[in-house]
């Protein structure tokens, strides 16, 4: 427990975070690159066509990881928001702010690849189906979080208000998860279901490799975005110090 507190306290210091993340980032990015390259090879050249959907099922290898990371990204935003409001962890707001645009990008990829999969399978790019609609709401929630934060100049107030909205919005995650059971065109869960996965190993393995690779990429992007945010706050703090020093000098010369 004492060790955990020490680690958390050390990580709460942005200087320690920058040092640790600088060491971790190249490894994370490299592992993501290697796994995605292997995953793409398995998906495009090794995995057989699906017995019902044929080669169109290859869209699954980019659509499913995007969908998973769209939801995971929101959980990162919500957990970080909780950390800010309850524990006042100095890096929690940095994490929430950094994760929102990345989550929005993965959600947009999920929606676009889903539309491209839907057209040949369902005959339409878009239907107001519970799963599709709830993912669209998730995308709008991400945009709302980004817009709310950028509309408030006070960084601390913006962080707190955005955190409250993020925690209220977490209700969308179970809605997305269970929406496939509500008279949906979308197929139900094939991997994360009770019992064994309803997908053959020859299709499952490429999907797992792609999902792991893209998850590591998400981690690397989030870490990089957090580092950028720490730098942005340092630049802002230094500009304020410089402006204060300029004002004091002007007052001295005037006096």
């Amino acid at each position, binding site marked *: 427990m004492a060790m955990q507190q020490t680690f958390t306290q050390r990580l709460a210091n942005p200087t320690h975070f920058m040092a640790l993340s600088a060491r971790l980032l190249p490894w994370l990015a490299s592992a993501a690159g290697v796994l995605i390259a292997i995953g793409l090879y398995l998906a*495009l*050249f090794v995995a057989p*066509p699906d017995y019902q959907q*044929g*080669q*169109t099922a*290859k*869209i699954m290898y*980019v*659509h499913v990881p*995007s969908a998973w990371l769209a939801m995971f990204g929101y959980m990162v935003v919500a957990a970080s928001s909780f950390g800010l409001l309850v524990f006042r962890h100095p890096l929690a707001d940095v994490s929430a702010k950094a994760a929102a645009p*990345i989550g929005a*990008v993965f959600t*947009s*990829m999920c929606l*676009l*690849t889903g539309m*491209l*999969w839907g*057209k*040949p399978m369902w005959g339409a790019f878009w239907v107001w189906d519970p799963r599709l609609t709830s993912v669209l709401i998730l995308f709008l929630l991400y945009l709302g979080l980004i817009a709310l934060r950028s509309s408030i100049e006070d960084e601390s107030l913006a962080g707190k208000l955005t955190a409250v909205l993020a925690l209220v919005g977490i209700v969308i995650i179970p809605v997305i998860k269970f929406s496939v059971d509500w008279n949906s065109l979308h197929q139900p869960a094939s991997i994360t279901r009770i019992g064994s996965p309803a997908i053959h190993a020859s299709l499952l393995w490429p999907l797992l490799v792609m999902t792991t690779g893209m998850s590591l*990429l998400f981690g690397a*992007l989030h870490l*990089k*975005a957090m*580092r*950028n945010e720490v*730098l*942005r706050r*340092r*630049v802002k*703090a*230094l*500009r304020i*110090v*410089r402006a204060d*020093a300029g004002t004091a000098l002007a007052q001295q010369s005037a006096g």
Partner: protein
Amino acid sequence: MDFGPHAGFIWASYAIVATTLSLLVAWLVLDGRRLQRLLDELDATGVRRRSDRADPSQS
């Protein structure tokens, strides 16, 4: 590599993901470089944060 009659949809999906992720990576890398350059410029002018000035290891 024959992806059948729906090859256009498959390639479009992969192209969208590749392009979007490349743009995201480029944005983060370029933004990081721009911020680091700004920070270096401010450091060069001798401006120090209060926390830096209070830290004995920085003096």
